[in-house]
Structures are given as C-alpha cells and as structure tokens.
C-alpha cells in the first residue's frame, strides 16, 4: 500500500480520507429533476475480480494468473495508481474518465455472516441485522422525501422491473412494476444447481435435465473452461453471454424507458441474479467477465435511454457481500465480506475511487480469508439520499437507516 496514505479507522473524520480528486462543490440544484435507481447484484460479487488493487504489492501473488493485472491476455484498465477495472467493462472505464462514475471499495453492509438470504435482507432492509423484512430502505426513503419538494411531487411510486418486487422497494409507499409478459426461462445458474442436485439424488433425472441444456457436451469437455477446446468454450460462453446480455439489457432498457418519461417514476430498483461464482469464476475470460460485459453494455444502454435525464441521474450498483481473496479448489471464490459498489450517473461527482484500503497481507484480512471492510454501504447511500434527493439527514438516520450511528453520511457524492 502506498506509504503516503495511512490507514485509519473509518468514522473519525468523514470525507478527509478521500483526497484524490478536487474538493467537490456542494450544490443544491433546485431546478434538478433527480432520478435514482438501485441495481442489486444478487449472489455476492467478487469485488476484487471487478476492480483489482493492482497497486497493492500483495495482490499479484494472491490470485496468480486468475487475478486482474495490467499485463496478460486481458489487461485491466487502470483507474488510478492503485486500482484497475476488469477489461470487460470499457463503458465503465469511459464513465470513470468522464467523471460520471465513482467506485467505492472495501465496502460492506453491517452484516458479518455468510448467508445470501440474510445478507440480502440487510442490504435491502437498511437494518443493521437480518430478520427484519417488513420494508426496504428505498421505500422508506420515498416516504421521507420532503413534502412539497419537487422530488416528492414527481416521485409518486417506486419502480421495479420483474415479477417480484424486491424487499428494498417494499413498504408503505406504492410500487409500480413492469414485467415481461412471456414466461422467463430459468437461468443457467439455476439449471446447473438443479443438475448438481440430481447427480447425487436421481441420476435418471440428471440425464434428462442435462439433455435439455446440452450440458452433456460440457460434461464431456471437462469442468474447467481451461480444459475445453477454444471452440467449445467460445460456443458455451457466447451462449451464456447472449443470455446475460439479453436479461440485463431487457431490465435496464425498460427501466430507462419509464424513468426518462416526464410523468414516469423517478426512483426504483432492479435485481440482476447470477453473481455467486463458487466455481470457475472466470474473472478474465469466463463467467464473471461475461456477466460484467453484459452489465457494462446494459448500463451504457441505460444511460443512452435516459437521454436528457441522465444528467439528473444516480445509479447505485450494490451487492450483498464480497468473496474470498484466494481462489478455491474449483477455480472460484466463496462468500466473503468487503467488495465494490458503484455510483454511476450524470449527477455523480465521479472520476475517483473511494477506498480506505485495508491491505491484503494475512494479518490485514477478515478472518484470514476476506477483504476487511473499511466503509459502510449505508454511509454512501445516505449521501445520495441527502444530496441528490434532498431528504433531511435527521430523517434519514431516524427512519431510512435506523441504528446507523456507526455509518456517518458521506458528502459530496453528487454534483
């Protein structure tokens, strides 16, 4: 870690740690018509596989040739002296250089266990612990909008895409949802899990289901993508890519369609599944890179679809937890703690990393296996709610993110 930066426990002085860019001007844009979209990446995204600390001397040895680097066949794109972003995300790199993307790292919710369901509950409920499922923080934010404020008048309902409103949008405030009319096909990930289940419990069913997905081909060519012939790998990967590109594009194109309308919803959330990369994570050229490519393209499409409203937009892209720093025995990673989050949009005061880097030496890690958290996600969200949506900070602490004293608001996130 660069020697001129000292690690400090977050919470002492908010804001002073982040000295990269110039001091942002705090502006209250009274003519602004703000949009806020939360994109929930379900499964626990491997933050280190998306944005890697290439400037950390302990990084290269941790993941060897499965880790992002500035060299090699899929060179990561440098963001600053410390970090580089996955080569599958050229649009994000451009947003970063256009100062419309802010990337937070070593960030986590208050949740410290490893269950997807509970972690997602904490991520979406805005509560410090799991088990509280009656409303989501975005819904409570809607009701906390200053009455009479332009934002409140225009933001009557929460938008959600897909047939099942996620917890984050549920609560007292109304929801408006849109879902594709055709029957959605099951994701590849779900299919693989079912197949795995059958291989131990009912081989006859396993054969049948495998036929449906042409997975016998994959089984014959071996589990690891590295063992497949390039052609087979390309075939399978391109099918996977097609699947994710379609899915992500559909969700985000439609979100933009609604949110850019003068009379459309202003605030919403969508979920994108499939990020639980326990095996064959493929950050460089496999599954993760394919999904990041799909996300990258879909967000570019969203920005385009928002048209003039893009300059008033903030998108928060978040996930429930990160993953282990080391690769496991099946070329993947297991559930971890700290990870990345993105704030993307024309209204974002971007072009910078926000990270109090905890380091990657064994002693620096959480429970010896995961990136330690030095930033609470709620701090980031509070900043957006206060300065982009003009919600009273006292109300945020009281109703939107109760019991969040350990997560002070971060200012200056928005232009």
């Amino acid at each position, binding site marked *: 870690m660069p020697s001129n930066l000292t690690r400090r426990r977050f919470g002492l002085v908010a804001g002073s740690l982040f000295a990269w860019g110039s001091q942002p001007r705090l502006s209250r844009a009274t003519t602004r018509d703000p949009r806020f979209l939360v994109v929930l990446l379900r499964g626990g995204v491997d933050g280190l596989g998306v944005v890697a600390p290439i400037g950390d001397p302990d990084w290269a040895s941790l993941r060897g040739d499965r880790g992002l680097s500035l060299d090699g066949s899929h060179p990561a794109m440098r963001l600053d002296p410390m970090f580089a972003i996955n080569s599958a995300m050229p649009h994000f790199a451009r947003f970063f250089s256009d100062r419309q993307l802010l990337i937070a790292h070593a960030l986590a919710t208050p949740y410290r266990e490893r269950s997807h369901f509970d972690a*997602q509950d904490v991520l979406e409920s805005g509560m410090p612990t799991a088990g509280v499922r009656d409303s989501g923080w975005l819904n409570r934010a809607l009701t906390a909008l200053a009455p009479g404020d332009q934002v409140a008048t225009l933001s009557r309902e929460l938008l959600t895409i897909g047939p099942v409103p996620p917890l984050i949008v549920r609560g007292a405030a109304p929801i408006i949802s849109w879902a594709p009319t055709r029957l*959605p096909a099951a994701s590849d990930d*779900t299919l693989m899990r079912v197949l795995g*289940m059958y291989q131990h419990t009912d081989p006859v069913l396993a054969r049948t289901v495998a036929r449906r997905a042409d997975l016998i081909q994959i089984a014959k060519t071996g589990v690891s993508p590295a063992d497949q012939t390039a052609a087979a790998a390309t075939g399978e990967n391109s099918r996977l890519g097609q699947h994710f590109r379609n899915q992500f594009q559909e969700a985000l194109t439609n979100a933009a369609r609604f949110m850019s309308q003068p009379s459309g919803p202003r605030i919403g959330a969508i979920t994108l599944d499939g990020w639980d990369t326990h095996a064959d994570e493929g950050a460089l050229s496999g599954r993760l890179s394919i999904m990041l490519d799909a996300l990258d393209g879909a967000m570019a499409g969203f920005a385009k679809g928002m048209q003039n409203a893009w300059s008033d937009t903030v998108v928060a892209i978040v996930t429930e937890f990160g993953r282990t720093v080391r690769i496991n025995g099946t070329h993947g990673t297991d559930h971890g703690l700290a990870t990345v989050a993105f704030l993307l949009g024309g209204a974002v005061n971007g072009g910078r990393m926000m990270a109090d880097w905890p380091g990657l030496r064994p002693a620096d890690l959480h429970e010896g296996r995961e990136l330690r958290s030095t930033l609470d996600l709620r701090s980031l969200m509070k900043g957006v709610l206060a300065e982009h949506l003009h919600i009273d900070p006292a109300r945020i602490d009281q109703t939107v993110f109760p019991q969040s004293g350990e997560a002070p608001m971060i200012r200056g996130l928005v232009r």
Partner: protein
Amino acid sequence: MDSHLEEETLLGLHRFGLGPRSDLQYENSDPKELILGDLQRLQGPPAPALKDSGVASREAFANRQDRRAEQKRQRELRLSGLKQDGIPPIASTAMAGTPAALILQDEADWRYDLALAAPVGLQERLVWFWSNHFCVNSLKTPALAGAFEREAIRPFVAGRFGDMLSAVIKHPAMIAYLDNQRSAGPNSETGLSRNRGLNENLAREILELHTLGVEAGYTQADVTALAKIISGWTVIPVQETTPLAGEFSFDRRLHEPGSQTLLGMKFDQEGLDKGEAALQALARSPSTASHIARKFARHFVSDESAPALVDRLAANFRDRDGDLNELTKVLVSSPEAWLSRRDKIRRPGEWLMACCRGLGINPGTRFLLDSQKFLGEPLWQPPGPNGFSDDSTSWLEGIGQRLDVAVRLSQMAPVSIDADAAMNAILGPLARPETRQAVERAESRMQSLTILLMAAELHRR
C-alpha cells in the same frame, strides 16, 4: 411426530393424495387411516355457476362464434405442435370469451379449487384417475368435458364400477367423443332407409380400454356385437328446439333390432336395457377385474407393481362387484403400496398441485391450465381415448420444462415463505441431504424455492 411416522405420513400424502397443504398439521397415529379418511369426506355441492351438460351444450351452440373459434383453435393447435423448444405464450387459447370457453374455465376453476383445498386429496386423485381411464377430449366437446368429469366420474369414485361405466357411456360427451351418435344398426330403421351403418369406435374402446383390456381375447365379432347393442345410444341434436337438446337419448330408429351375442352371452332385452345389461356383464368379467387392478396399481404405486398387490385388487374387484370404495381401501391398506422406493414420476397436473399446496399459493386457473399444457398434460385434452400415459418414462422428458414453471411459481410465492420450512413441511424426512444442501446454498430466496420445487423427491411419489 416421530420421524418414521412423519415419513410414512408424507409418503402417503404424496402417493395417494395431492401432497401436504402448507397450512395443515398432519398429526396422526396411522397414516393409512389418515389417507382412507378422505373417502368419507363429503364434497360440497358444485358451485352454482356450473351447468349441467345439457344446458352447457345448448348454451354453447347458441353462440355461433364457437364454430369459427373452433376452426381457429384447430389451426393454432397445428401451429403450436411445430414448436420444438419455444415457450408458449401465457395468453389464452383462441376460444377465449366464447360461452364454451367460459364454461370450461368455470369447470376448471372449480376442479382446481377442490384440489388445492382438499386436506388429503385422495378423492381428487381418484377422480383424476378415473377421468383419465374414461377420458374424453375437450377439443371435440369443449362445453362438456368438465361436466362429464363432474357428472359421470366424480359421484362414482367411491361407488360401483358398473354404475360409473353406465353413466360414462351414456354421457353426451362420451357419445360425441367416440362418434356413437350417428351409429346405426344395419337393419335399423335409419340404417335401412338412409343406408347408414355402424360406427364401432365406442364399442371397441369400451372393450379395449374401459373394461376387458386389449389382451382379454375378445374378437372382431364381439366388437360388432357390442356396437349393435349400443346403436341408438345417441344425443338429441343440439340444433333441435326441444328442452332436451344436447342430452342423451335412446333412439329406436338407430338401434339394431334383435338379440346379439357378446363374449358368448346372449342379450335380447328391449331398448336401452340391452345395452345396460351388456355393460354390466362387461363390468363383471374377470378380465375387467384384472385390467382395472393392473391400471389402478400402476397409477398409484409403480409401473411394475407387485403381483400380490394386483391379484389382491383383482380378487376384491371380482368379489365385491366392482365396489371402488373397497378397491381403494385394499390399495391403501396393502403393505406393497407403501414401498419406500418412489419410482413413479408425478404427472404435471399432480406436480403443480403438490407445489401450490406446499407453498400455499393459488396461481390462478389460467396459469395452471397454461402450465399443464406447457408440460404436456393439457387438462381434458388427452392425446387419444387411452388417455394420458401412466408410465413414468413418458413424463421423464418433460422434467426440464418444469424448471421454467418452478421459476414462475417461486416468483409468485409470498416473501415470507422460507424454503427450509417449506421443505420440511412438504418433504420432511423424505428430502435427501444433497437436496437440502442445494436448497440451502441457493443464491437468493427465489432460487431456493425453485430448487425445492425441482427436487427429485417432489417429482417422484
């Protein structure tokens, strides 16, 4: 409840019923009694909106749209048959809105409501079994398929086989489905004057499918004899302006006069009685007893049922004159019917009910009808008079398709449902460790429910 008792109870609910309901506690000390108790349960009267088959026929005919819609539907059927792997649209069939479609929808509504509400579901399973044994196809008689099951099958599932047989063969839906309405004895009044002849379809299927079974050794002469015996069993044309249009009637002008010999027995009664007597004789044949016993065991227990079980069922059928209440009791009381190995693949309709009951959701009739169709078991539309196949291999291929339905069902489940709790309620000790693990390791709540609904233990019973 101790684990072994719980396992037996769940095994029984899945094998003989429609799977446990999420909101019921099945506390009991004897799983067999729990299952058999369902036979005593009285059914509520039909929903007032349901129409008698005669009324249904007349109403459907009155709407001329039905005829045009019929053509469109046939066309769409041919088109959808060409799709290999596409997912059919959720939108309803061509007939939507016509009286016949509405009648069918009402009937389906009621049927699904009963199935979802039944505490155990043995009665429903019996209705579905016999309805498949004596099947008709709603594509031919859309207004009548639901009424047929309700009028000719349901009242008899714990009654006498011979009574069910008689009601079925006299039902307008069956007469129309197997083309008996214009069958005329060669020497009947109409046969002679209009040069019309016998249609053997219904007679053949009575012998081959409904009673004796194809290996019983009846001859072509027997088929013809039976066709003559039931000639005149017809339906008053629905166009006629009589209050009984569309209902069963015995038309002497179509009936072949004189006595007939069927399976070595002579039938010379007058009018309708001749056919009734023949049907009862068929019901009493030992071949019928064996045929029914094999099918019964095959449907509920295993494709290759223990010979002892089949023999016991056949003997009971013979000795008790086709008392189906007794037959069911013998089935549920037989140790062979409780084997722990669960080989039978649940048919799509049964699987859907188990899922919905287990999760406590009602996705609506439209969804259930579309899903059944998508999974290859469209309600009341069997591929032929022999009904939907009852052997497991036929339903194996469609398991992959069920994944898409499972995704939709898990999307509909209320967020408060916990997959672990649901798994314990639906499968309990029947769930294998790898299944539990797969459910627990899911990436999201919804995925955990999808994986649960796709558990092998839920596809088999």
